[in-house]
């Protein structure tokens, strides 16, 4: 079976601005795939390139193995769910859902039958005759999904469709979207700047920054094994310390930093003398009173400047010698007091060393 979507050296430029740079990617059939990145990173451009609203400046988009160059959005086997949903206000719910079938010339009775089934599937059976303006946010969401599914696309593209919803409803819709995807079994490509959404729903995630796909992997790998400083700092909270590599051994490396020598994993194979960044997750840090021996960790001292108790966890902000702020998240135990000086430690395997970008 051919891959659902293949991007082969896709570049999109607007005048001098490079929106997408050299995207190479294969999205498998039946996958729930997310593009995660801050606004302006090119993820929406990439989505519009896949759906056919933008032709790539260079490179090829293949869907189901077929080259899509020169094929307009109305002739691609994709369906897009817009950020604002773009439901047609002058049509009823049923007419909205049946629109794709209508323009395909599907006979009326067949169309009605199919719309009825879809309405049942998205729990809107009673609402087919209503105007879109009579529906709630969540109902509109489901009309948009049904409208897109009606044309039986190979790939469903979703452009941050949950961003307009209330928080509670948004969490509910995540589960529902995932359930729909499992049920219909087609490829979902989901665009979001919300890492929570990407991590909970996706089989795989592509993290994008400044037009470049920085890393592709499942949720666990982009969170636990980031390959670039951007991914490390964008996906989840992270503390970042600059330094220079002094020694390399057994997959670990020692970094000379203004806070002293620190050790972390070295997955990208840095060698001695290279500039590097050390990343440590707040939840990997342990705080102990200064002077307490703690053999398994490396660390440095810092003064607690803010202690935010959130019930199950507590966020402690500490200021270290260089003036930099370090965040630690504690699960329980003894909470430090504001103003207290503490030893901040972590196990070397929780530290992660990545090459520092040349100039930023």
């Amino acid at each position: 079976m051919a891959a659902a979507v293949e991007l082969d050296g896709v570049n999109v430029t607007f005048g001098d601005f490079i929106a997408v740079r050299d995207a190479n990617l294969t999205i498998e059939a039946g996958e729930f795939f997310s593009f995660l990145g801050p606004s302006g990173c090119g993820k929406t451009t990439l989505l519009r390139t896949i759906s056919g609203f933008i032709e790539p400046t260079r490179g090829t988009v293949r869907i189901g193995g077929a080259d899509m160059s020169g094929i307009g959005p109305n002739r691609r086997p994709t369906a897009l769910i817009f950020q604002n949903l773009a439901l047609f206000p002058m049509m009823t719910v049923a007419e909205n859902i049946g629109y794709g079938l209508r323009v395909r010339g599907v006979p009326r009775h067949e169309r009605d039958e199919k719309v009825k089934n879809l309405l049942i599937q998205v729990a809107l059976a009673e609402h087919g005759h209503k105007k879109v303006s009579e529906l709630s946010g969540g109902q509109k969401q489901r009309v948009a999904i049904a409208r897109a599914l009606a044309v039986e696309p190979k790939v469903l593209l979703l452009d941050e469709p949950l961003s307009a919803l209330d928080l509670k409803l948004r969490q509910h819709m995540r589960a529902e979207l995932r359930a729909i995807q499992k049920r219909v079994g087609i490829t979902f490509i989901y665009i979001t700047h919300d890492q929570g959404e990407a991590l909970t729903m996706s089989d795989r995630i592509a993290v994008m920054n400044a037009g470049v796909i920085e890393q592709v992997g499942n949720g666990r790998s982009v969170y636990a094994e980031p390959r670039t400083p951007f991914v490390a700092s964008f996906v989840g909270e992270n503390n970042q310390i600059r330094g220079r590599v002094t020694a390399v051994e057994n997959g670990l490396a020692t970094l000379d930093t203004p806070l002293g020598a620190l050790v972390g994993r070295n997955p990208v194979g840095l060698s001695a003398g290279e500039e590097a960044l050390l990343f440590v997750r707040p939840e990997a840090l342990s705080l102990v009173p200064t002077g307490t021996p703690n053999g398994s960790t490396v660390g440095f001292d810092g003064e607690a400047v803010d202690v935010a108790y959130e019930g199950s966890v507590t966020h402690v902000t500490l200021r270290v010698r260089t003036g930099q702020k370090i965040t630690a998240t504690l699960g329980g135990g003894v909470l430090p007091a504001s103003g207290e000086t503490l030893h901040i430690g972590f196990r070397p395997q929780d530290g992660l060393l990545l090459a520092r970008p040349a100039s930023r």
Partner: protein
Amino acid sequence: MGATGGLTLVFGLPLAVALFFFALSAYERRMGLATGPGFFQRNGLAVGLYLVLAVGFWVFFVIVLPQFSMVDMSFRPKLPPSQMGGPKDVFTLENYRYFLFGSTTSTASWNWIHLKAFALTIGVSIAITLFNFALCYPIAFHMAQSAGAARLRILLLLMIIPYWVNEILRAFAFRVLLSSGGIINKLLLGAGLVAEPIDFLGADIGLYMGLSYAYLLMMVFPLYSAIESLDRNQIEAARDLGAPWWHIHLFVVMPHAKPGIASGCTLVFMLCAGALAAPLVLAGPRTLWFTPIVYDRFYQAFNWPQGAAYAFILLVTCIVFVLMVLKMFRLSLGEITR
């Protein structure tokens, strides 16, 4: 217009503009300034053709070329049809000379009647514009800012009814009102204020009132919509700061309503200066107004080139007025034609 020259222009101009757009879009595409589907791709062939043909016909055959040929004619002598395009059909200023001196050849004496009529038309039109602004501003402000929804609907309804009564009937209403046997003179006579009926129409009062009346609503509606968009809190804030009412209007409301004021003023001026119905119906025998003179050039004197010249003079005056208003209010054309 020479036969071949004329036709070259009529068909050449649209063609040249079409080529220009073709070249422009090709250039923008090559420079990467334009992306996405092209015009026909975006609209489809049928809709695209409809857009091009409809707009092309309108712009060239209804707007630009007629104006052009009117201007062209104004620089040509009056000739019988058989000699048009012949050796005698040459560029001339004689029609404009006639406006100034009352003769196509001599410059000995000024054409006082036409010049006075022209000056009077412009002067009175400006005066009526100012008068209408003063009269309409308070009601427009009231409708836009302080009237409740129900009252607003009634006020708008009361205004829409006279709006669609045509100019001739409006002028006629003033004739009924002001003629020597009209209700006003009857009232004045009955009250013993005058011994003889006043000749309002002969004294041009009827004409001026009729013009002001005819274009009253052209002032109200732009003012109303411009003031309506002003946030009521701004006025409240100014009041809280202790600004007196005139200060609020002069420095808060009017600057905001600038586009509406400019739009209303331009419309009223243009309509007054170009009014034909009111002068025909309300003018006394000695009344001077420019548009009837233009009309007579065409359909009394049958001197079309002269009429075209007079029309062009009026057009230029209106353009100058619009430009002056725009300059004075520091606005662009787009802001006043909303």
